[in-house]
């Protein structure tokens, strides 16, 4: 979504795809042009579905033969029954939702597991732009100016962990990626991830 660098984008998607068990049922919320869905269909043989807000995105996905519904993550997840999917994925989208907590709770209701990847607002580049320049940060992974961004709810890795604890979601796996797409030290403490992770990927299940 917000990623412009195809290299960074691919690594993020690959990491998400690796977390998905082959042959499972997957719902990608905010699937954009269907890049992840196509990757999952090709490499993991999944029964993949998507929801996307933009008409162009959906039309493109359907034209590519993907099962995608035009809809809004903030309102339409309630239409799905409990345990409808093995995985519900929110890739680089949580910051664009109106009610991230509600969306996350819905994901854990309709999916046995949830995978969330998001840009870390606690990354040192973000912090330093605010701190030294006194301006809203604009980076490779978040290229929008404050006045035309679809992103309304930024969070840091630490914030996200707090939200998981609040709603009782269990963190099965967590990976932080640096700006180049490399993994941030696996055994590093949260504060280190929070500072040096440009983006994070979490695999959650109901607690």
């Amino acid at each position, binding site marked *: 979504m917000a990623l412009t660098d195809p290299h960074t984008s691919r690594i993020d998607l690959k990491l998400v795809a690796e977390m998905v068990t082959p042959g499972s049922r997957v719902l990608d919320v905010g699937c954009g042009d269907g890049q992840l869905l196509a990757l999952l269909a090709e490499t993991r043989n999944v029964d993949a579905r998507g929801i996307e807000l933009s008409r162009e995105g959906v039309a493109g996905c*359907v034209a590519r*033969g993907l099962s995608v519904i035009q809809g809004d993550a903030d309102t339409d997840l309630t*239409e799905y029954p409990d345990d409808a999917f093995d995985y519900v994925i929110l890739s680089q989208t949580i910051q664009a939702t109106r009610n991230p907590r509600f969306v996350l709770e819905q994901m854990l209701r309709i999916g046995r597991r949830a995978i969330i990847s998001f840009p870390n607002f606690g990354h040192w580049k973000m912090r330093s732009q605010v701190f030294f320049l006194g301006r809203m940060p604009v980076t490779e992974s978040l290229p929008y100016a404050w006045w035309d961004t679809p992103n309304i709810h930024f969070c840091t890795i630490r914030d996200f962990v707090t939200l998981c604890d609040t709603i009782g979601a269990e963190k099965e796996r967590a990976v932080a990626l640096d700006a180049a797409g490399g993994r941030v030290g696996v055994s590093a403490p949260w504060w280190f991830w929070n500072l040096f992770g440009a983006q994070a990927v979490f695999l959650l299940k109901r607690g």
Partner: protein
Amino acid sequence: MSDFSASLADPLKEANEPTSAVARFGPDTPLAMDCGVSLDHWQIAYQTYGVLNEARSNAILVCHALTGDQHVASRNPITGKGGWWTAMVGPGKPVDTDRFFVICANVVGGCTGTTGPASTNPETGQPWGLGFPMVTIRDMVRAQRHLIDSLGIETLFCVAGGSMGGMQVLQWAASYPDRVFAALPLATAAKHSAQNIAFHEVGRQAVMADPDWRGGRYLEAGTRPSKGLSVARMGAHITYLSEPALHRKFGRKLQDREAPTFSFDADFQVESYLRYQGLSFVERFDANSYLYVTRAMDYFDLAADHDGVLAKAFAGTKTRFCVASFTSDWLFPTADSRAIVHALNAAGASVSFVELESDKGHDAFLLEEPNLFATTRGFLGAAARARGI
């Protein structure tokens, strides 16, 4: 012009002996209708395009809308014009007849060769008229199923259609889920709205108010309620368009004159356009058929057959669905399509949905809409890969 029209088929003859393929059924295959009547002698007229493959797995059934017919992609014998969906169906088109075997049948209650009120009642030797049993969408689909059986096709690769055709698509998927691999309902709804019933009632009352309608027995009397049917069509035609489309086409432009005549002549272009639409419709469509088929749409409420829960209509379905609506369609608005999609989600079905940008109103599904073509092509292509064809 007169030479050309001389080669055109007689609409009255078409009702019994269509210039297309026709499957006739006798007492061993009666058509059991929802109203309780069973037809022992009935027929269904159809057209096919392309070739059925050896596995009989590439058949697409196209369902026509209210005033359509079986001539989806071939010259209409009554009007002499091309088929009603030639933009969509044909060699290399989104519904590719080089690849798929396309079937389109005239609906029960219609007037181009499938048994309906203009057909001859074998018991009386006279046209059925209002003696014809009331038709439902499910009856139409049941009749199509008999046709598909007789063609030796177990599972349809896809059932596709817009508007009333879309209703049939949904009914097919609900009635015979194992026999529909993919479903493409366009610009449609799982139930006919009160507003749409209201529009239909105005049309029917226009037909019945015409003195030439004669209580439905006009064919015996050698008359036709042309004025009433024409008015019904004019009213309906407005509902198929949108204000931007009408405005772009006609605005307030005058027809062949510089100033208004201060009379009730067709001063405005939009008036003469509607009059033309009404008149040309009368030539090809039977007034009683119009009453029956509009009624069938009015009665359609798929959820009502399943305790009012639409999702139950699709419980356990394996069919792959692709639903599409148009932004300017106020007759079958996007909310109707969303209701279908929500029910399919709740049933765990595989479903795609897109609201396509168009200012052409309900009729958009019949027109050159590149986004609709891309969606259809992509959906059918992916489904064909999954089906191994």
